[in-house]
């Protein structure tokens, strides 16, 4: 919820490198000849047709023949997302087009969208050059832009499903979909928050509402779902939520972010965890705070990963520290998985919450140093 934190301090007068490489989404290139690489995803396997390929524009065609919603990623070192498709429903196929320079990568399917996924090695050889030092920051923003686009696409689909369940008065389904739809919101929360007028309408908690204003959005429906269980009158609120989400998706996709904003966004996401999720404040009715926690963490990691080539050049020790601390938080959080999702906040003891809080602080402190490295 609340105000913009993805802000570049006006006084800092720092670099603006956004858009150096354009959107880089891959839709502007006809790429190489040859058919797409088939990926067979199931609930327990992730079969990639070719694991040694030529550098350049690569297309994957991911078919989900499992029973769970799946995701497919191509990661560079440090889980830097080179490309991804989200929200592949059972029975569906979706394409991923991605520009891959020579190097070693990992592919991953994430059935149920959970965990590190089912990983496989991918070797890319050829002549497409690696990034020149000064271009690394520009690539970072292009890379993160792609991430935002993939997240917003899934946010929209999942919100549509959630809204449909609410309007169908299907309480059980709406409860299941609620934390899932929010995952995509929480991963890019700082981007969404920078649109101050829409954020409170979509994600505002009850207390943000001033006298005379209406309490709307995810948390209003959350309250009805988990307190009275009566959502029969929430149709209009659900419709409005979808309208607002569509508006924010359009704005988020048009937004050009700077590397400094990525750095601050990565920190802001952890601050969200430290101030709102760890306390159970955010999801006070559903207690699905750990879903948000994980999504914030993933979003933070994606922003740092986008900056990784630049950080490797400028401060390799910091990168090592971040890798260590990200792994530590993931391990601490991983203890609280429940199926494809997460335990409720209320199911954790004070000591377990304290452990999570400590691990978030241990990560957030070095992450707060990233902005200075990027700015220099």
């Amino acid at each position, binding site marked *: 919820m*609340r*105000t*913009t934190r993805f802000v570049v301090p006006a006084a800092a007068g720092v670099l603006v490198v956004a858009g150096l490489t354009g959107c880089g989404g891959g839709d502007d290139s006809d790429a190489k000849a040859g058919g797409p690489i088939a990926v067979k995803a199931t609930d327990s396997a992730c079969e990639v047709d070719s694991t040694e390929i030529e550098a350049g524009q690569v297309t994957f065609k991911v078919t989900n023949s499992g029973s769970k919603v799946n995701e497919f990623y191509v990661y560079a070192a440090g889980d830097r997302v080179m490309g991804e498709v989200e929200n592949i429903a059972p029975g569906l196929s979706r394409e991923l087009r991605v520009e891959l320079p020579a190097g070693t990568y990992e592919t991953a399917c994430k059935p149920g969208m959970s965990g590190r996924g089912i990983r496989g090695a991918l070797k890319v050889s050829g002549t497409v050059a690696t990034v020149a030092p000064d271009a690394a920051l520009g690539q970072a923003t292009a890379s993160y832009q792609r991430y935002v686009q993939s997240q917003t696409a899934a946010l929209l689909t999942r919100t549509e499903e959630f809204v449909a369940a609410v309007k169908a008065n299907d309480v059980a389904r709406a409860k299941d979909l609620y934390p899932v739809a929010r995952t995509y919101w929480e991963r890019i929360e700082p981007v969404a928050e920078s649109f101050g007028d829409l954020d409170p309408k979509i994600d505002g908690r009850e207390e*943000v509402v001033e006298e005379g204003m209406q309490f709307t959005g995810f948390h209003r429906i959350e309250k009805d779902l988990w307190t009275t269980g009566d959502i029969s009158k929430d149709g209009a609120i659900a419709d409005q939520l979808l309208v607002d989400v569509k508006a924010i998706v359009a704005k988020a996709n048009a937004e050009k972010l700077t590397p400094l904003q990525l750095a601050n966004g990565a920190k802001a996401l952890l*601050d969200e965890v430290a101030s709102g999720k760890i306390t159970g404040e955010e999801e006070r009715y559903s207690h699905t705070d750990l879903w948000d926690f994980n999504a914030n963490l993933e979003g933070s990691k994606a922003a740092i990963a986008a900056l990784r080539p630049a950080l490797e050049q400028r401060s390799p020790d910091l990168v090592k520290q971040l890798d260590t601390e990200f792994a530590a938080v993931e391990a601490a959080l991983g203890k609280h998985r429940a199926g494809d999702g997460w335990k409720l906040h209320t199911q954790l003891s004070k000591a377990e919450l304290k452990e999570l809080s400590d691990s978030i602080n241990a990560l957030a402190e070095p992450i707060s140093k990233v902005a200075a490295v990027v700015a220099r």
Partner: protein
Amino acid sequence: MSEPSTDEPTRGTGVSRRRAITLAGAGVAGVAGVAVGAGALLGGGDQASATETAAGAVPFHGEHQAGITTPAQDRLHFVAFDVITKDRARLVALLQEWTAAAARMTAGKDAGVIGAVDGVPEAPPDDTGEALGLPPSQLTITVGFGPTLFRDAQGRDRFGIADKRPAALADLPHFAGDALKPELSGGDICVQACANDPQVAVHAIRNLARIGMGVVSVRWSQLGFGRTSSTSRGQATARNLFGFKDGTANLKAEDADLLREQLWAQPGDGADWMTGGSYLVTRKIRMLVETWDRSPLAEQEMIVGRTKGSGAPLGKRAEFDEPDFAAKGDDGEPVIAETAHVRLAHPDQNDGARLLRRGYNFVDGSDGLGRLDAGLFFIAYQRDPRRQFVPIQTRLARNDAMNEYLRHVSSGLFACPPGVRDAADWWGRALFS
């Protein structure tokens, strides 16, 4: 403890140790201006004299209650009581007892006429004793009446004073982002004790609470340290827990005209018994210091609208330079952001409305998650909250970039009557007579 210690110098003299100290050079207790150093204090403007009198007494009697424009002391113990009796006479008797005890304690004496160590061995002392040997420490005790004293939640006129409720004591609205805890908010009567020694402030509240047993019940209380505002030009501007100077543009005791206009209720304001009094708003504002501490310096300064070092408004050089809200930077953006705290809170942006703030830092230990349970206990006095605190806080709640790092968890509103004139006067006399 029944055996008197032979090296207790005050034992058997009939004068407590506190008394022995404070009566030196003074005549009768409780007369305005009598206390050591008080004259120097009222002179204001002289930091050296303020330091010298840090341990002295602030006069209790006067036109206004002490503890409002009194140069802000370093420590606070604030308490809000619920009145638990239905008997108006008992309440009135308590207010009279409290007034007498407060007059004694602010002069550096024991709460009761007998004292902590001079009574009969079989009786509990009428002072709790932890301030024995301590100087007055500029203790001030200030009282206010909450809206619920006039009418309860069911609308009942509790003590026959409902028609005397001032219009300015209008319930505060719900501000955007308020996360108030009812058990930490409101109250029928508040008592603010400020001193330069925490033990002296705590002693004062503890003894008043004890005197009030059966008539009032403590609803919530708050300890504070490190004043976060200066209320006198003789004081340097203090820093809050964000590390920034706070209260640079505060109303000061020396601004006589402004105080009449902005601080003291005037004849004709609508409640005669409040003339010379002031309205008090308290807010307990938790600061999320861990996340603040890892935000970049430039972002912190942008949020506040001042530099962290000197406290100068952004774009200016010195702390007391006037902020230029129209100035634009090279990028065409305002030098002081639209969402900067200093812009939104400034009188120029609020129809000239100002507050006299005398808030305190608080740290209530940690919260079990390893986070400091810390922040600002905001205290503001004013002539009419409807024209001062409410519009200012409405703007801040909507737009202040600092909100990201704040949680308002407690709120209080009280009408603080004018000063106790003399030994025959008492807190609330004009209200209950």
